[in-house]
């Protein structure tokens, strides 16, 4: 699971442009209510809307992240791809993994994985999906350029048989591989088409050939991407004939276009516009779904005071999470105890083991005295300001930065804020020199397929084991051993037990200080229904059942 990297960049960049004007534009909409926003109980979150019954000619959908760079599933994650390119497995709205283009995809021994391709599945051009296409698609992820590379790193070879079976051989067992098949890592593309188009695959010029419920119709760069229903889709044709994806990165524009009914729906709408979205004269409704998204901040160097867990624990003790959720998320989020979001294992086999361990973790609380003690104990030089990098222009992040800054002040620390433009901020993640002079970086991310190891492997393992974001040089032998054991375990229970034993140690060390879990926010026209509204939108064909109420 390398997905975090890219997602962190994209989400940050999108927020940067999406939310600046939101508050200004929405102010006049509803009655004034100065009390804190109403919190939504996690049990009332909606994973999907009832399936539609009426056909619809055309739906206009806003992509708040802006125009995608490519529709190639191996190098991009966006909300358009899952409707175009079906994966071997499907992530259901409740975050369980079900069969997709693969009728079966299972480990047949600890280092051998067998995929049986479903019969009668065709690409948009009518050619059948074969084992060769599947092998070709999987091979595309066996290069570091793919965002799914980590889950494919232990593969030694991929072979096909004429009867529609693909056998994947591994150098060591890897529990993360099957989960990746539910996302873009398992997306199936036509080999013949890919060979013809070459490097342009997925771009506006090259196009795509997949087997999803919608087929790419027209991509006018800078204007829109339109897709039309695939009448021969293996899992039943969609009800909506055509979807026009338009790119609206400005929060105010998005909010007014949605509430005025000019755009039918959008995911990841800004929480800052909650009042406008919930106003009675709007053309649609705001839906909160479960998500794996969270806001957090973490250390960027090994020789900063931020590398000391006590400093991070102290900051965590100084931040009031409910104020944070009210201010930044307008109540549309929940307290999250540790870096691994609960929804990510909610559909997994050993979910009880994960849940019990999560319940046993302490909830974050405010205790300024304990925080000050921790700072004193750490012996850091409190006269040196700590620098916190955030993406510029995003309201959520400027609020996050001020909250961290004022909490730090309460316990005698000085935090200075370093706002960076999107490209500059994104580059921080893999250009070490750019992190010079920075102590913390605040970010947001989500995981789009089930699996608990996505974040821990990146943040807790030593760099040589894949800890690419382990900038503070965290190295705990027990954590490393447990996480490796969880990855290579051959059964779900052993994997879960190894993971929770690692979590017991790494959670209190707060390699990322988790500030809040954010809900998946969707705004949809009152006339429409049938879509997925959980974070599964990144991996499942969410528009398949979209149509009239």
């Amino acid at each position, binding site marked *: 699971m*390398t997905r975090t*990297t*890219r*997602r962190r*960049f*994209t989400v940050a*960049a999108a927020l*940067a*442009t999406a939310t600046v*004007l939101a508050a*200004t*534009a929405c102010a*006049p909409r509803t009655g004034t209510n100065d009390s804190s926003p109403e919190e939504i109980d996690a049990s009332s979150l909606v994973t999907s809307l009832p399936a539609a019954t009426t056909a619809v000619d055309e739906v206009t959908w806003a992509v708040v992240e*802006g*125009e995608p*760079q*490519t529709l190639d599933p191996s*190098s*991009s*994650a966006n909300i358009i791809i899952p409707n175009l390119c079906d994966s071997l497995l499907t992530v259901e709205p409740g975050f369980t993994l079900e069969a997709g283009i693969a009728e079966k995809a299972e480990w047949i021994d600890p280092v051998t994985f067998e995929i049986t391709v479903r019969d009668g599945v065709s690409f948009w051009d009518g050619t059948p999906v074969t084992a060769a296409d599947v092998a070709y698609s999987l091979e595309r992820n066996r290069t*570091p*350029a*793919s*965002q799914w*590379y980590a889950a494919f790193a232990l593969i030694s070879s991929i072979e096909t048989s004429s009867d529609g079976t693909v056998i994947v051989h591994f150098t060591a067992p890897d529990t993360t591989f099957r989960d990746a098949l539910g996302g873009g890592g398992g997306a199936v593309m036509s080999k013949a088409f890919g060979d013809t188009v070459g*490097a*342009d695959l997925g*771009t*506006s*010029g090259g196009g795509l050939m997949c087997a999803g419920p919608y087929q790419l119709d027209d991509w*006018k*760069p*800078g*204007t829109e991407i339109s897709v039309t229903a695939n009448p021969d889709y293996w899992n039943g044709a969609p009800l909506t004939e055509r979807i026009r994806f*338009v*790119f*609206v*990165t*400005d929060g*105010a*524009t*998005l909010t*007014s*276009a949605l*509430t*005025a009914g*000019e*755009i039918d729906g959008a995911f990841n709408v800004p929480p800052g516009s909650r009042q406008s979205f919930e106003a009675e004269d709007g053309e649609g409704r705001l839906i909160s779904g479960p998500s794996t998204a969270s806001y957090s901040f973490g250390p960027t160097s090994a020789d900063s005071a931020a590398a000391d867990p006590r400093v991070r624990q102290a900051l965590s003790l100084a931040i009031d999470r409910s104020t944070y959720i009210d201010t930044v998320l307008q109540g549309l989020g929940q307290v999250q105890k540790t870096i691994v979001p609960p929804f990510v294992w909610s559909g997994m086999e050993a979910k009880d083991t994960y849940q019990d361990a999560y319940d046993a973790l302490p909830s974050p609380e405010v205790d300024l005295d304990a925080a000050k003690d921790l700072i004193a104990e750490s012996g850091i030089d409190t006269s040196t300001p700590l620098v916190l990098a955030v993406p510029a222009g995003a309201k959520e992040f400027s609020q996050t930065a001020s909250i961290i800054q004022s909490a730090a002040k309460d316990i005698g620390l000085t935090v200075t804020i370093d706002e960076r*433009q*999107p*490209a*500059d901020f*994104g*580059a921080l993640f*893999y*250009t070490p020199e*750019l992190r010079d002079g920075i102590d913390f970086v605040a970010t947001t991310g989500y995981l789009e397929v089930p699996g608990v190891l996505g974040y821990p492997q990146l943040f807790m393992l030593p760099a040589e084991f894949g800890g*690419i974001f382990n900038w503070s040089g965290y190295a705990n032998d027990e954590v490393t051993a447990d996480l490796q054991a969880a990855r290579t375990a051959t059964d779900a229970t052993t994997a879960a037990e190894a993971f929770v034993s690692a979590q017991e140690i790494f959670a209190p060390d707060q390699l990322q200080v988790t500030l809040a879990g954010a809900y998946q926010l969707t705004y949809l026209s009152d006339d429409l229904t049938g879509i997925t509204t959980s974070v599964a939108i990144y991996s499942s064909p969410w528009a398949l059942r979209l149509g009239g109420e």
Partner: protein
Amino acid sequence: MLGKLGGLALTLFLASVIIFSALLLTPGDPVTALAGGARPTPELIAAIRAEYRLDDPVWLQYLHWLGGVVTGDFGRSFVYKTDVAELVGARFAVTFQLVLLTTALIAVFGLGSGILAAIGSRRTDMVVSVTTSLGMALPTFIVAILLIWIFATSLGWFPTFGAGEEGLDRLWHLVLPAVSLALMFIAYISRVTRSALVAQLHSEHVETARVRGIPWGRVFRRHVFHNAAPQILAISGTTIAGLFAASAIAEQAFGLGGVGSLLTEAAARKDLPVVQVVSLLLVALFVVLNAIADLLAAAIDPDSAGTRRNA
């Protein structure tokens, strides 16, 4: 005329050098855009740098780029991986139409109110002066938000978003963006027009003409407006050329997807080939439109334009 063209070419050349080198000096690494969000390993970064010649010396990169531009190859977008020419071309139409409509608004209301203020009653002058002060003080994005709120969201007369389909629908979609973009410039042109006309009205030859009993209408056309026109035209030329860049804000607020918003997005994503070409295009437009304004001014009043010496 040839000298003029030479000047244009020189300006463009200098602009291209400045644009190219300035971009390389700004913070942020183009590899971010090129990697497209994948986790780049050192090998991948090296491959990308080699493919896009990022390790070449700046002058060599510049020459390579210039060679491409001269032969019509504007390069490929780092972010979209498509030809820049195609990307810019697709977006230019919307911006051009927006600027055209805005220009019409500015011409009618800016010139109109300026003339009114100059020749009307004291009261009219006051009203125009107060209104234009207000107009100049309102930033485009504030006007855009207000217009959307009043005319799109509340009254529902205009769409809040997008450029619509070609034709009347497009015009309808462009009204609010054009008004929000035009307001500040209307105020500006109004003031320029008024002061240029007032200066002429108080000039000696106008006084003389009036004393000699020449009809007022004729004095105004032949002397006042005729003499003030070159100045107004020169300023208008700059203004209209500037609209192409200023349109970014209106395009962003109304989700129009023109070259202005392309430029801001490309700059944020460090998409160098796009930023270079769009910047150069804007400079070229600026220079050419100014030259046209110059020529027009000279055509109206050959004496006032020193630029036509060699024509």
